[in-house]
């Protein structure tokens, strides 16, 4: 067997965390450099994934499979064109997150970095698992480091924010767990074999009513994670309280676990239920777009403005996912990456400001650009990327998304375009108030421009923004095959409407695989 590269990428950060336990608390520098080194090596290893990935195949690649606990619970990893990008996004942003907390975190550096590394392992694990049990283990386990990151290093209302985050997420994922159990037992009844393999469940055809319940179980968990309106309430709290790096990871990667869940599970497993719930979900996504945008307009705190902009952007991504066509879904995945970069970058920018001025209120700033010219250039690029300026990454994603949505329903697309208008409004207005105009606050005069470390972690992001905006082929062509297979599953699955039976013994029929 070849080198188990996926396991390596997944568990290397966790190994780093274990190593850090044994480094003395006082050696803060050693901790920081070790954490950075581990995240960088993980990034390098994940680049090897990218170069060896065959974009023309829809099958999962780099597959590792071995028995684990029996009864269908296997250790089964693999990436396809959808998860590959999310893994890369995670490994790309992690060193940046570590760098961004270099001076911001002064207390309990050791524990902080341990949790960051564990978080990275957990997130990568979610994206590479091909076994539902393994997926669920990572999905839940990753909550623990996030809980500590917000709860220990967060702002004044951190305990409230972190408990709300954990409990709301757990609520959804526990109901998803029940749905997993039901799937598990249906598969057993239908075939006499225990299995929790995701691709085995693709063969399982359930009657529409059962599908409806299971879909709700899965969709609720993912909708909370995304978050879709009206389950978004944890997000502004968590974002505002979390330390910068945790906000970056939360916005850039964690939210994508929700959309990824929809693409990987909710759509292909329950196509009939999806059809039934599609209007409702689309409307919720649309409400999210407009509501998030309007809320962002009235925020006084820059960080919560960016948080609400996330709600709005994620709404567009979900709407594009629900358009169920090639352009829409690819656009959604592309926009997931864009959102990760641009929102992550905006949180970093807010962090840079906060570290200097110790405030995030818009009214405390004004005229910052005169003091920090380099910073203002970076801020402008990141902000425009989030708005969707042509030439930058956000434009490509939004055009694809909106095109897909338009193909599915012109009315929805017309309404969804408001995300672009609203984004331009709240971001440009915020930029104007913070960066331009007269200096109202004397503190602003003493602000120093970005240092080399900050440049060091923003430059790669900006390079990626241009790259993704100018030459999207690099990214899109690797996902084509996987996305088209996904859509094939959703649209062309043989639909068997079984007579309704007792809830204890619902119908489960195996499709003949040709």
């Amino acid at each position, binding site marked *: 067997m070849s080198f188990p590269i996926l396991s390596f990428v997944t568990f290397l950060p966790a190994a780093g965390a274990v190593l850090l336990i044994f480094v003395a608390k006082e050696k803060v520098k050693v901790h920081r450099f070790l954490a950075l080194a581990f995240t960088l090596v993980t990034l390098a290893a994940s680049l090897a994934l990218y170069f060896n990935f065959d974009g023309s195949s829809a099958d999962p690649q780099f597959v590792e499979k071995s028995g684990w*606990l029996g009864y269908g619970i296997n250790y089964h990893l693999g990436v396809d064109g959808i998860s590959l990008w999310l893994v890369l996004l995670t490994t790309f942003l992690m060193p940046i997150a570590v760098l961004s907390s270099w001076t911001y975190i002064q207390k309990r550096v050791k524990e902080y970095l341990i949790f960051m590394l564990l978080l990275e392992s957990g997130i990568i694990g979610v994206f590479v698992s091909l076994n539902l049990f393994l997926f669920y283990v990572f999905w*839940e386990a990753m909550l623990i480091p996030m809980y500590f990151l917000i709860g*220990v290093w967060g702002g004044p209302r951190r305990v409230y924010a972190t*408990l709300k985050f*954990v*409990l709301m997420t757990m609520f959804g994922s526990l*109901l998803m767990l029940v749905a997993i*159990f039901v799937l598990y*037992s249906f598969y057993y009844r239908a075939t006499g074999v225990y299995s929790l393999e995701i691709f085995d469940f693709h063969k399982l055809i359930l009657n529409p009513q059962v599908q409806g319940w299971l879909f709700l179980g899965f969709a609720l968990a993912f909708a909370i994670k995304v978050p879709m309106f009206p389950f978004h309430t944890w997000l502004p709290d968590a974002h505002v309280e979390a330390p910068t790096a945790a906000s970056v990871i939360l916005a850039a990667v964690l939210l994508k676990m929700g959309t990824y869940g929809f693409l990987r599970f909710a759509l292909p497993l329950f196509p009939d239920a999806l059809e039934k719930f599609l209007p409702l979900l689309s409307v919720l996504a649309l409400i999210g777009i407009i509501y998030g945008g309007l809320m962002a307009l009235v925020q006084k705190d820059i960080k919560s403005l960016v948080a609400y902009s996330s709600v709005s952007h994620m709404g567009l991504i979900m709407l594009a996912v629900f358009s169920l066509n090639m352009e829409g879904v690819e656009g959604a995945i592309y926009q997931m990456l864009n959102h990760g970069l641009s929102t992550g970058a905006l949180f970093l920018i807010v962090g840079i400001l906060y570290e200097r001025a110790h405030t995030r209120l818009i009214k405390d700033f004004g005229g910052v650009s005169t003091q920090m010219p380099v910073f203002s250039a970076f801020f402008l690029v990141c902000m425009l990327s989030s708005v969707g300026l042509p030439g930058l990454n956000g434009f490509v994603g939004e055009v694809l998304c909106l095109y897909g949505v338009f193909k599915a329903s012109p009315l929805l697309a017309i309404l969804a375009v408001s995300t672009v208008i609203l984004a331009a409004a709240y971001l440009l207005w915020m930029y104007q108030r913070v960066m331009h105009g007269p200096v109202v606050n004397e503190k602003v005069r003493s602000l120093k421009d970005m240092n080399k470390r900050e440049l060091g972690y923003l430059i790669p992001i900006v390079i990626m923004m241009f790259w993704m905006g100018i030459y999207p082929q690099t990214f899109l062509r690797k996902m084509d095959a996987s996305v088209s297979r996904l859509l094939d599953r959703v649209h062309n699955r043989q639909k068997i409407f079984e007579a309704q039976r007792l809830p*204890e013994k619902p119908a489960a029929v195996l499709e003949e695989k040709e």
Partner: protein
Amino acid sequence: MNNFASLSPLLATVGGALVVLLLEVFLKKEKRDYLGFVSLAFLAAAAALSVLCWDKNLTYFRGTLSFDNLAVLLTLFFCLAGAFVILLTLRYMSQHGANHGEIFALLLLALSGLMIMTSSSDLLVIFLGLEVFSVSSYALAGLRRGEPKSGEAALKYFLLGSFASAFLVLGLAFLFGASRSTFLPEIIVHLRMAAAPQTLAISGVAIVFVGFAFKVAVVPFHMWTPDVYEGAPTPVTAFFSVGPKAAGFIVLLRVFLNFWEAEQGRQPFFWALWAIAVLTMAVGNLAALRQTNVKRLLAYSSIAHAGYLLVAVLARDYSSLVFYLAAYLFMNVGAFAAVIGLSKTGTEYLELDDFAGVGFRYPWIGGTLAVFLLSLAGFPPTAGFLAKFYVFSGAVRAGLVSLVIIGVLASLVSVFYYLRVVVYMYMKEPGRQVDIEVDNPALFLVLFLCLFGVLQLGIFPGNILVVIKHAISSLSVF
């Protein structure tokens, strides 16, 4: 096969109790620790002797003592639990002015009672084991003689415990009257006979169940639990939370393994148990929300866990039940060990406010306690998650979807109060000055063994599951 070997683990334990009791007279007060080591040696002997009986299905006393594989497993379980408790006791007793040598003897006797309960199919013998356990446990609860709460715990436990025992005997009399036997297989055979009059037997089963429900602390027979747990010396509380629960559920397992098949009486019993399981999970978790004393919090949490175990009984998923008990042993004893660790001579820090800031101050105790609490809450990759996963997935397979939904929602509630302890440990500024004596190697040994157990059972239980499944499948069904 009738063989004296089946009696040997029990003899080792009882013998150990007697030897320790005798030695105590000759040992100086400062050297009481040796009694603990002697008891550990006897427990190790009992464990070794019981392993020798694996897969032999030995019986003794004309079948009333049947040392089958399940009994072997449970004997090992009790030996391990007993060893943990003894290790925790070593320091605790001198710290809290309860340095009585009897504790080891009483513990061993209580353990032997539990072993009797799990290795018999005769209700009368089970009752005998229960009484041996109960009488020693009443004394154990009251061992902190200077402490009024400890006395209250002992008295409360004694009064309610004897009441429950009386119920058990009454039910036993009913059953004997109906089926002319106290031997479980014969009773069940009688219950299956459609022609026989059933009222007497059914009410007998119900009354016996009430007796056991008291011992395993399921709602509405749980009232004693928080007070007794709070008043008893903490290592003894740790023992109470795992020992009798395991024994009680194993007895239920033996009864229901065959009883479910008996059609008559199944439906009402099933729904009564269903309701009790729901109540237990709901009341246990909701009441725990309001606790500020960690011992009481763990008491309510242990009630809630009895509810999850009942789900396994209802689903007839017995290997998951045993696995859950094993996971629960490690995580709960571990949590109590960490709580014991947070104490110094004369003072125990048990209020939630005392836990503020402890996590960073005492990283090992705080860190392991956090792991145990997360495991109790059911987070992967710990044993608690895997145990819940097996129990609930088995229940869904048995068609109990609504029960499982209630169960997971109840465990969501539990996440809140377990995490609240973690919040205090890591996210609050220290209030009252907490000074603890950390030089307690025995305690750290227990902490690390439990940590190992929690992670091992959570990530790679492999062989343990195989052993449990083998033990369950080799149980005789009649």
